[in-house]
């Protein structure tokens, strides 16, 4: 094992796949000569050259569409969006083109493409730079949506995404790129659509994904001291969702809190909650709770950020509510 940053894990995944398969290439704003806005692609231009590590103009719709077309014609593009907020401009190509190509062509053309970049809040960046898109893209049949929470998962899942023959949305975080974690020396792949029990427990199941999972770890530590044992499930993929993992856990704990960085309405937490009342109804000893971002656009001031984001105290409250211990 070795310790690497999240960004290095992503870089290893891309570089290994590019060495393995000449049809894989990376394009996006500042990915080449600038070495990546967040240094994810550092050094890749030197290794692979300008044919395969390509700086684009600021034209998300245009370069996303070019990548979709390239994927229809046998290549395997990795599209880096500086953040997913900017990828809203490319949503037509992700949702209308990539996600539907295989179906609309009656199976003739497919899009093996990965769209990746920073997602979610990253400090005082204001409303337009702080959105989380898990539920947006999870809503769309034809896509797969991956939400890694640590360097190990990020590398294994990105390699799986690059090798996948369907279009994949890969949601990272500016706040996670510097996170360190252990990964094996050699190659490994983590399958898409398989959740991971990050912490075993018996009293309450906490379901989460992405960088907000850190709040769950912190809360679980504190709750442990109060004699409450939390099982933490990292979904890792939000389309498809590994429902079985969640249901099995809840059958054991009989209680569930969903922790999500984004807004509450039509969210991953709504989906998990529906699924549990439908498929684990008789096992629930309390209503499913959730902790999400407030139902407001994200604001600039630190006091408003504190108010908006899920935090440890709120999660602890929600967990205790499922145990009727508030």
């Amino acid at each position: 094992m070795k310790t690497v940053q999240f960004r290095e894990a992503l870089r290893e995944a891309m570089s290994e796949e590019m060495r393995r398969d000449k049809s894989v290439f990376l394009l996006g704003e500042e990915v080449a000569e600038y070495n990546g806005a967040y240094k994810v692609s550092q050094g890749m231009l030197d290794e692979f050259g300008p044919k395969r590590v390509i700086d684009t103009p600021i034209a998300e719709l245009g370069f996303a569409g070019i990548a979709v077309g390239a994927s229809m014609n046998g290549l395997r593009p990795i599209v880096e969006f500086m953040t997913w907020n900017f990828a809203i401009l490319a949503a037509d190509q992700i949702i209308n083109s990539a996600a539907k190509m295989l179906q609309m062509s009656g199976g003739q053309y497919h899009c093996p493409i990965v769209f990746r970049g920073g997602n979610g809040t990253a400090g005082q960046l204001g409303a337009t730079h702080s959105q989380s898109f898990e539920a947006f893209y999870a809503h769309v049949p034809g896509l797969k949506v991956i939400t890694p929470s640590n360097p190990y998962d990020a590398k294994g899942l990105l390699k799986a995404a690059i090798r996948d023959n369907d279009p994949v949305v890969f949601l990272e975080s500016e706040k996670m790129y510097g996170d360190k974690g252990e990964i094996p020396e050699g190659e490994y792949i983590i399958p898409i659509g398989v959740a991971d029990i990050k912490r075993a427990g018996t009293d309450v199941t906490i379901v989460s994904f992405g960088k907000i999972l850190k709040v769950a770890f912190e809360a679980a530590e504190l709750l442990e001291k109060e004699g409450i044992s939390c099982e933490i499930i990292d979904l890792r993929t939000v389309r498809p969702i590994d429902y079985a993992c969640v249901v099995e856990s809840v059958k054991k704990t009989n209680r569930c809190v969903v922790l999500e960085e984004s807004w509450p309405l039509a969210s991953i937490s709504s989906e998990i909650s529906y699924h549990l009342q439908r498929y684990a109804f008789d096992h629930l000893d309390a209503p499913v709770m959730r902790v999400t971002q407030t139902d407001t656009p994200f604001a600039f001031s630190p006091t408003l950020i504190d108010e908006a984001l899920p935090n440890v105290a709120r999660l602890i409250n929600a967990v205790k509510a499922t145990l009727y211990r508030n």
Partner: protein
Amino acid sequence: MATKAVAKPSKTTKKSSVASKSKFSKETYVKWYKDMLLMRRFEEKAGQLYIQQKFGGFCHLYIGQEAIVAGTVSGSRPTDSHMTAYRDHAHPLGLGTDPRVLMAELYGRTTGCSKGKGGSMHFFDKDKNFMGGHGIVGAQIPMGTGVAFAEKYNETDNVVFVSMGDGAVRQGALHETFNMAVNWKLPVIYIIENNNYAMGTSVERTTNVTDLSKIGLSYDIPSKSVNGMSPEAVHEAIEEACDRARRGDGPTLLDIRTYRYKGHSMSDPQKYRTKEEVAEWQAKDPIDHCLDVIKENKWLTDAEIEEINNWVKKEVEESVEFAENSPYPEAHELYEDVYKQTDYPYIKEY
């Protein structure tokens, strides 16, 4: 770089004017005539069937614009690729797709070119490098350019034709893409099928830059206007653009002036134009023109022409018969071709 726009096509096409000194062979004219007649009759039939409610959805007819496809196909190679918007019936017909599978697609049958999942706006035929059939105005512009990107990446000398209406020119996707296509010298040829109306809104009403060939100027893309009622003119412009793309000099923009005789779609009352205007363009019909050239040169006898006409008629009739006798897709087909992953765990509820 960019050449000046030629005079309006309405003043350049005289009936059969190219016949005597044409560089095009009998075979070319006969193929143009046959292909365009198939497009015309296929779509006339499709329009009738649509009115009879034999199938639903939208139905955008290409009638009047056939010379663009005819000249593009004759001026290119079978290894080149084609992508267009939703007015997409004529392109695969010109490339040789069996009209039966196209009619079946209009009918939403499982034997259709897109297995009944695409419909009128989403025809595809991978065997002919026909890459759609795309319903979002302008979306095909970056996508088709990406197809060209892959050709350059793989170091082929194939080119890609990306067709669009004059309305699509106003989409941001075009401007973002043109910039990259020329910067990266991609082997792509942009064809504006300029019929002067984006649905019911004329070019003049949406822009101060009414000469669409000028759009290429700001991107340093060689551009020109072409008489779209003349397969000869289209063919020549396409050949020139192909030469440029194949030798690695990047994209070309062709503003091909044409006219659709029918409405935007089947529900268009056409109050935005006069009957006289339609008649004026119909007088320059490319199918009539090819027939005139063939007759003038005595390349075919009346009987041979009749044989072609009958063949076309039969092809269209058989395509309808094929479509009507084909089954609709079964329920399980809804879960096929969404993912390449064959065991994707779909959510299935009541």
